[in-house]
């Protein structure tokens, strides 16, 4: 089959309603992709870092691989894998220091860590439906996660409406880095410590000790409906519910290190052992024929029983440009520029609190958190703004991709003008990569 005929067939098969005629809806060709991402967080805020100076925060390099290939005309396999290497300091506790009014954050440096993950999914395509099954595994020295999922969709109403649904279940195993260095110079994991070393760890780093041998599992379900509105517009709505149980605290949150009288009363990080969360997602895609462009709008409402409620709004504009010059036409050269903005806002978890070490009697934190407590900035009331621009250049069966994102989180962005949260991140993300269709 000629290249142009293959592209035409591929395009036709992607059109809802053309599937029954063609007797197959799976991908007509294979695709392989690679992405390299460099992620770098801004230094810790010097004025609020209790070490007295700015520290390098997380820097991560990510390599991603993806291959999608049809096995038969009704069955396709999709595999994704990634490798990350990361290093840098992260916030481990926040507090209002004795004799101070401002919030200070303590950052711990991290040794170089690596993470690998792989997911594989098989999908069967019927004339007006499809069904898929997938497995996912993520491996770090201190964390192993395994997940399985089933999902499917069916088209009804003259294939104007798509109903979809799915379920996934996962189990995670924790084995935190103990910080104890062996005689050979290796940093030992908690599960590798002797009983004497464990006793010492319980005194020095109780949160890491508490996570020894802990696990958690989660179950997630979603239902969605997609609807074609007209020749250029499609909308989608979905709801999901996720239940997690097990060790949901962060083993790397340390206890407050201070000589203040009540500092010893502040726990490290104790979160409920269950979490139930629901989401409502709405999306719209609108093609603008006169501009050869498309607009994407997505909204997500998240609520959970930790009292976290968040709103996420994503807007993207896809501008295509295909120069009508011989070289570009002959080589299928197309350009696509995609500016986008993402806004995120969340309320705080009911057990989030910054302990005030100026307190001299009782506890340094309020009575509402006597059972559960965390000063993790990710559980605070804040907002985040992200600006992103992507460029894709098609050349024959190749696509070259590049993108840059600037993300900044701040209480004021979430309309919280009362609190100070110096541990919230701001980062740059640069990505480049190549797609190959064959």
């Amino acid at each position, binding site marked *: 089959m000629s290249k142009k005929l293959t592209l035409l067939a591929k*395009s*036709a098969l992607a*059109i*809802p*309603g053309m599937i029954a005629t063609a007797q197959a809806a799976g991908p007509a060709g294979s695709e392989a*992709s690679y*992405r390299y991402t460099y992620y770098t967080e801004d230094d810790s805020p010097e004025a609020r870092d209790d070490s007295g100076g700015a520290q390098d925060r*997380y820097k991560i390099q990510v390599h*991603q691989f*993806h291959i*999608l290939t049809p096995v038969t005309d009704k069955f396709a396999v*999709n595999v*994704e894998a*990634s490798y990350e290497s*990361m290093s840098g300091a992260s916030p481990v506790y926040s507090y209002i220091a004795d004799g101070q009014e401002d919030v200070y954050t303590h950052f711990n440096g991290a040794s170089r860590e690596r*993470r690998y*993950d792989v*997911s594989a999914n098989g999908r069967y395509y019927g004339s007006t439906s499809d069904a898929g099954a997938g497995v*996912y595994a993520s491996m*770090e020295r201190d964390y192993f996660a395994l*997940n399985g*999922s089933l*999902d499917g969709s069916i088209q009804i109403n003259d*294939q*104007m409406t798509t109903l979809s649904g*799915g379920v*996934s279940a*996962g*189990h*995670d195993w924790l084995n935190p880095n103990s910080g104890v260095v062996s005689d050979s110079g290796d940093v030992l994991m908690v599960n590798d410590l002797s009983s004497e070393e464990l006793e010492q760890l319980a005194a020095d780093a109780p949160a890491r000790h508490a996570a020894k041998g802990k696990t958690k599992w*989660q179950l997630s*379900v*979603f239902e969605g409906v997609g*609807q*074609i*509105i*007209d*020749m250029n517009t499609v909308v*989608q709505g*979905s709801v*999901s519910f996720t239940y997690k149980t097990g060790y949901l605290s962060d083993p790397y949150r340390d206890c407050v290190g201070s000589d203040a009288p009540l500092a010893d009363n502040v726990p490290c990080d104790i979160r409920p052992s269950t979490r139930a*969360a629901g*989401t*409502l997602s709405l999306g719209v*895609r609108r*093609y603008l024929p006169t501009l050869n462009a498309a607009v994407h709008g997505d909204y997500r*409402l*998240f609520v959970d029983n930790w009292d*976290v409620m*968040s709103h*996420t709004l994503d807007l993207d504009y*896809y501008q295509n440009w295909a120069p009508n010059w011989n070289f570009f036409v002959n080589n299928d050269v197309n350009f*696509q520029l995609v500016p986008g903005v993402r806004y*995120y806002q*969340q309320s705080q978890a009911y057990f989030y609190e910054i302990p005030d070490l100026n307190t001299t009697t009782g506890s340094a934190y309020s009575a509402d958190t006597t059972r559960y407590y965390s000063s993790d900035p990710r559980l605070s009331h804040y907002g985040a703004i992200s600006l992103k621009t*992507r460029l894709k250049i098609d050349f024959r069966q190749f696509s070259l*991709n590049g993108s840059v994102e600037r993300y900044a989180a701040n209480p004021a962005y979430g309309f919280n003008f009362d609190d100070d949260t110096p541990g919230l*991140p701001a980062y740059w993300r640069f*990505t480049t*990569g190549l797609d190959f269709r064959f």
Partner: protein
Amino acid sequence: MRLKWLFVVLCVVGVSGCVTVSPWQRGNLAKSEMSWSPDALESTLDGHIYFAKEASSGGGAAAGGGCGCN
């Protein structure tokens, strides 16, 4: 409960307000930039980073696992 009703109303309004689009009129809807996630790897990494940096995650599809959370 109110959210559930809002969702149902939105679905009914959305379905009743549309016209039948024949298969041969769906060329624009089939363009890659009209898909829900045009770049699979970008979507995966977006989900992982926002999951690690924010208190909420999921939505749209069944959730995955993994940490790399600092």
